[in-house]
């Protein structure tokens, strides 16, 4: 008997923003399989026009409520590169510290609040408060710590306030930093428990070869940088981001689509781990090995695992950075800023993948033209093609509408998509 399937998910849940999944299989043949983003377009690139450089970062942060620290950092980096600003080293370290805090809170939120309920057959984390209080307690401790760290360093986790062009405007005291370090050390056991939990989850065995794009580090696993690389061997400077992303408009989608060497490419934790595995901290590599994640991994469901690996990396980097900051002079945190006409591109690894902001300034420090290419925009074509390939591979005997709907939803969720970002 040939299989028939019909999946129609309107406004997929437990992701940021509005997107739809459609799968139609008739007599074993995939007639339709789609991932479409229908989120309301927001036009930030227009809104950034004519904005003063002191306003741009504050506005750009509002592109995303979850990764506003990344948008803020990317925006001010673009401006600093346009003006040729030298940022004091301790200020750069404080920014990176908040960046790691964001990575940790975002990954923990995704893995344990948004992705995990599928593996426990629950609609959300709320029933897990009673069923798995141990897991929820760990999630709350890690997420709570990361949010408080960001509050202390960036002034606020959602829509940071201390990051400005030139440096940072306020810093936590060394006494506070020391307390955060001690707390992070105390939470390392929780991260081990998360890795052990994820090891017990049944990750669907699906592979579709694709290209992975991320920042490429030299000596450090990269979060804020200049060099961009792909698993297909493309290496470029972030100034050439347009020839990496090649955005185009799909008539069915309010998010643009992108492509590089193939029909689509992927960004995010899995792309970063695939492209920079050798630069992960040894503690993170140990977790990657235990969870059977090795480069180049082409199973998109493994992005959940890559997020756990990166959470461990971020935790140890938080401890290292605080040690360095305790030895630094935190009195001088702003460099000199003189606006000048010209262009700058910022490139930052947001939790969901590489993010570019590109501004062209006039000589009064106001933006003539702005362009932002965000992570989920770069993932949407790849997710769409994954759904098609997944439907072909899994439309076999025994598959039901409900199971196909669940697996396709899990596949999209694995990317941790941020759709309001993608229609900025």
């Amino acid at each position, binding site marked *: 008997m040939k299989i028939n399937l019909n999946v129609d998910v309107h*406004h997929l*849940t*437990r*992701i*940021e*923003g509005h997107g739809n999944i459609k799968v139609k299989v008739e007599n074993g043949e995939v007639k339709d399989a789609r991932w479409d983003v229908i989120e*309301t*377009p*927001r*036009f930030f*690139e*227009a*809104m950034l*026009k004519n904005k*003063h450089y002191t*306003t741009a970062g*504050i*506005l750009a942060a*509002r*592109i*995303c*409520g*979850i990764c*506003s620290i990344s948008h803020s950092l990317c925006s001010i980096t673009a401006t600093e590169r346009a003006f040729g600003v030298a940022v004091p080293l301790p200020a750069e370290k404080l920014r990176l510290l908040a960046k790691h805090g964001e990575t940790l809170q975002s990954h923990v*939120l995704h893995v344990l*609040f*948004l992705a995990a*309920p599928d593996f426990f057959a629950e*609609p*959300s*984390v*709320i029933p897990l*408060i009673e069923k798995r209080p141990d897991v*929820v307690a760990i999630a*709350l*401790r890690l*997420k*709570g710590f990361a*949010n408080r760290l960001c*509050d202390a360093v*960036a*002034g*606020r*986790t*959602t*829509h*940071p*306030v*201390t990051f*400005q062009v030139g440096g940072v*405007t*306020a810093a936590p005291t060394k006494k506070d930093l020391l307390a955060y370090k001690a707390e992070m050390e105390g939470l390392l056991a929780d991260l081990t428990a998360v890795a052990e939990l994820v090891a017990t989850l049944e990750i669907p065995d699906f592979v579709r070869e694709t290209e992975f794009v991320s920042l490429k580090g030299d000596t450090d696993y990269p979060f804020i940088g200049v060099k961009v690389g792909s698993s297909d061997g493309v290496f470029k400077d972030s100034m050439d981001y347009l020839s990496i992303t090649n955005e185009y*408009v799909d*008539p069915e989608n*309010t998010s643009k689509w992108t492509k590089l060497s193939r029909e689509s490419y992927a960004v995010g934790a899995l792309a970063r781990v695939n492209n920079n595995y050798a630069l992960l901290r040894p503690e993170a590599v140990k977790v990657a090995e235990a969870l059977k994640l090795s480069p180049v991994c082409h199973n998109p469901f493994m992005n959940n695992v890559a997020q756990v690996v990166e959470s461990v990396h971020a935790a140890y980097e938080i401890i290292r950075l605080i040690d360095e900051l305790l030895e630094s002079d935190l009195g001088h945190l702003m460099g000199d800023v003189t606006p000048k006409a010209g262009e700058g591109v910022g490139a930052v690894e947001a939790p969901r993948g590489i993010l570019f902001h590109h501004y062209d300034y006039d000589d009064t420090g106001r933006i003539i033209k702005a362009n932002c290419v965000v992570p989920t925009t770069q993932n949407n074509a790849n997710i769409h093609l994954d759904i098609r390939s997944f439907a072909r591979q899994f439309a076999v005997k025994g598959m039901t509408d409900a199971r196909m709907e669940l697996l396709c939803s899990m596949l999209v969720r694995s990317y941790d998509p941020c759709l*309001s*970002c993608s229609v900025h």
Partner: protein
Amino acid sequence: MKYLGIETQKPKIAIFDFTSCEGCQLQLVNKEETLADFLAAVEVVNFREASSARSDDYDIAFIEGAVSRNDEVKRLTAIREKAKVLVALGTCACFGGVNKLKNEFEMKDINRDVYGKNPKETLWVRSVGEVVKVDLEIPGCPVSKNEVEAIVRHVILGAPFTFPVYPVCVECKQRFTSCLMEKGQLCLGPITRGGCNAPCSVGGTGCWGCRGPATDPNYDSFFAVTADRGFSKEDVAERMGFYGTFQEVQNR
């Protein structure tokens, strides 16, 4: 939740997002130390960002975001019909927020700039209250979870909630911050409603007015002070227009 040994009522709440960054919804799952209690005090029946369970039977609908497309108008109208109480959550819902900066442009031009030959449907941005009746507005970019918790507590216990009448300056001073205006920075703290605990002025950025006007703000005095300190009328108007929160006075 129990108070004095008596089980309190448990309102059914639903959370919906419109044109926004979804950062205000995110605040609802932050403040981890009290999150379990918060979720136990209410019955969350519809929260797409966090749960696959969906029901149209709810008492309170929280609306995040502004309105900028026809399908949003329809969706919002349908929610208004079902909800006993409709709450605008965050600056975008209450005032339109930064989205209103879009209204300074011709929709045709921005569509061409962003989407080229494939324009997407978009409307002039409106706040939730410009489309349907709103029962309660909780401002903030993002909202303060502390304040949301306090409001929900008041709803459960049947006690009216009052927002602070004083401006952000009061809370800024309570945190021993030197006045940013004294340091030559523009700050809307003197005219903006408190309740946020002044994270922006404490963090050195100055207030941008996301919570809207304090009760009976002294605009004349504020404009006199900013003029005296050398800020141009244009700079002050641009700052006051950022979140769309001072629409009645910004061009005075």
